[in-house]
């Protein structure tokens, strides 16, 4: 078997999620390689080697500096065909998902997503996937090669079980249509206020709070509890609160001791970012909110009365 892992990098570091996939792949398949695509890749190949890549393929060219999927489809498709690679694995992300989807169509190759685990079953690769809002665990497979897989964020921890890799430069040759989309600017705000990665308690406000005017109420509760305010994508995209507070697939993956969600529906892209929280409490006026299915305490009620009351009670208790 031969396995290729797409390593996504940002600046001078490789995303933890893709390194986790690489370490897992190397444990399953001794013939595991990695591909890194961008400009000025420097020492990234050594990091890939340390995490289990026997060979690291580098497409290092200014023309592919921007993190866009379609040129990466061209490069990876050529590499897979040239080397006869059987498995291509990705840590799920905005970029990786778009590459995997394009590659699937380009190579007519099966793509399984949301994989929480990968196992070998008698020489066959099997993916373990939670489906339907994690109400069922599905074993998925592929009818042929190459097999493509997107691994859910946070499924595998990176492990430094590798060594010095063989490094090979690969050609950057792209299709006309792949270069039509261009990045004209980027806003990458840095976090301000308490970081949600590090807080033990996260008071999370979702779209159901209805108005950005509600945030002082949540800040007050978070402060009383000694935690931080976190949000969902809908809140951030609406411009109600900074991006640095967003939990989810395109935000941060967190695992606090306590997650309290107000007006959070529990859509899958949010869930993958917080399901490892030790205790989950959800308050929502909709009794059918999906978040209730994976909460330790589910409260059907109006957050506008519960939040101030809870703040008051917490302060009284802490004051006593």
């Amino acid at each position, binding site marked *: 078997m031969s396995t290729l892992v797409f390593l996504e990098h940002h600046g001078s570091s490789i995303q933890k999620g893709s390194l986790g996939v690489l370490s897992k792949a190397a444990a399953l398949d001794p013939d595991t390689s990695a591909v890194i695509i961008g400009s000025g890749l420097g020492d990234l190949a050594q990091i890939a080697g340390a995490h289990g890549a026997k060979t690291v393929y580098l497409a290092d060219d200014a023309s592919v500096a921007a993190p866009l999927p379609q040129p990466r489809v061209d490069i990876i498709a050529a590499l897979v065909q040239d080397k006869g690679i059987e498995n291509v694995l990705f840590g799920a992300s905005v970029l990786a998902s778009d590459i995997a989807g394009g590659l699937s169509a380009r190579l007519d190759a099966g793509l399984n997503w949301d994989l929480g685990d990968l196992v070998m079953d008698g020489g066959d690769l099997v993916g373990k996937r939670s489906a339907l809002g994690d109400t069922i665990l599905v074993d998925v497979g592929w009818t042929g090669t190459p097999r493509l897989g997107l691994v859910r964020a946070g499924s595998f921890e990176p492990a430094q079980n590798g060594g010095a890799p063989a490094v090979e430069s690969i050609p950057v040759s792209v299709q006309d249509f792949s270069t039509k989309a261009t990045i004209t*600017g980027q806003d990458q705000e840095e976090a301000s206020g308490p970081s949600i990665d590090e807080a033990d308690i996260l008071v999370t406000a979702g779209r159901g709070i209805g108005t950005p005017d509600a945030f002082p109420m949540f800040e007050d509760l978070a402060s009383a509890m000694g935690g931080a305010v976190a949000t969902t994508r809908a809140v951030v995209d609406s411009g109600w609160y900074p991006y640095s507070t967003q939990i989810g697939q395109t935000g941060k993956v967190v695992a606090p001791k306590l997650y309290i969600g107000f007006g959070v529906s529990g859509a899958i892209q949010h869930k993958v970012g917080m399901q490892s929280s030790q205790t989950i409490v959800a308050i929502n006026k909709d009794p059918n909110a999906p978040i209730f299915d994976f*909460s330790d305490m589910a409260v059907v009620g109006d957050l506008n009365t519960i939040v101030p009351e809870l703040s008051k009670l917490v302060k009284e208790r802490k004051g006593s």
Partner: protein
Amino acid sequence: MKIAVCVKEVPDPGPSRRIDPGTKRMDRSGDRSLNAYDLNAVEEALRMKEAAGEGEVVLVSMGAPKALDSIRKALGMGADRAVLVSDDAAAGSDLVATSKVLAAAISAESPDVVLFGQQATDGDGAVMWAAVAERLQMPVVSQISELTVDGGKIQAKRQTEFGYDHIEAPLPVVLAVSDALNEPRFSSLKGIMAAKKKPQDVKSLADIGLDASQVGEPGSRTTVADLNPPPSRGDTLKIEDDGSAAQQILDFLVERKLV
């Protein structure tokens, strides 16, 4: 301006949703509706048409003939017509096979813009647009939270793990929009009545130039081998607020030594 919007009928979210243990496919016999995320794509298409002052919004879908019941909701919002590829041979199609069908149906329409919602609530893959764009050989932009169309090109703001990218691409283009991009309009009663009379073409695979070997199980590249219950989180304490919810939450947190 011609805009194609890919929409999908999905099983209603909730406990009745299941995968058939026999066929290992989604059970589509229960209550169904239009994928909620698709409404944002339909809304955006209608706004594009309104901003351009002319054009056509065409819904493109694959599914059983009865999927038209759900698709009419988007016609009621104001989409002009629907194309549904419906063929028994297409049942059980995975990403590879479904993207072939959608690309063939879209290609026949020659749209300027192809729109997708951010994911389907049954498959949750959020990859279809990339596969369709590849087959159509068009640029693709996903996770869009702001969008403008002007002078034969689009400007989009895409959210990623690192913040926002501003992306420009010429038409024709494939776009996947976030559900925060807009607030979908409701279908008015008048709209719903008008929807029944709007063109709703049901096409076979042959109509779009495909044959049975390219779709369904023969055309798919993935399999479902086994179904199991998920690992349990333990019991959920469920309450309805009777005025004491805040106190009950505090008691729960104190018991777990979290306050």
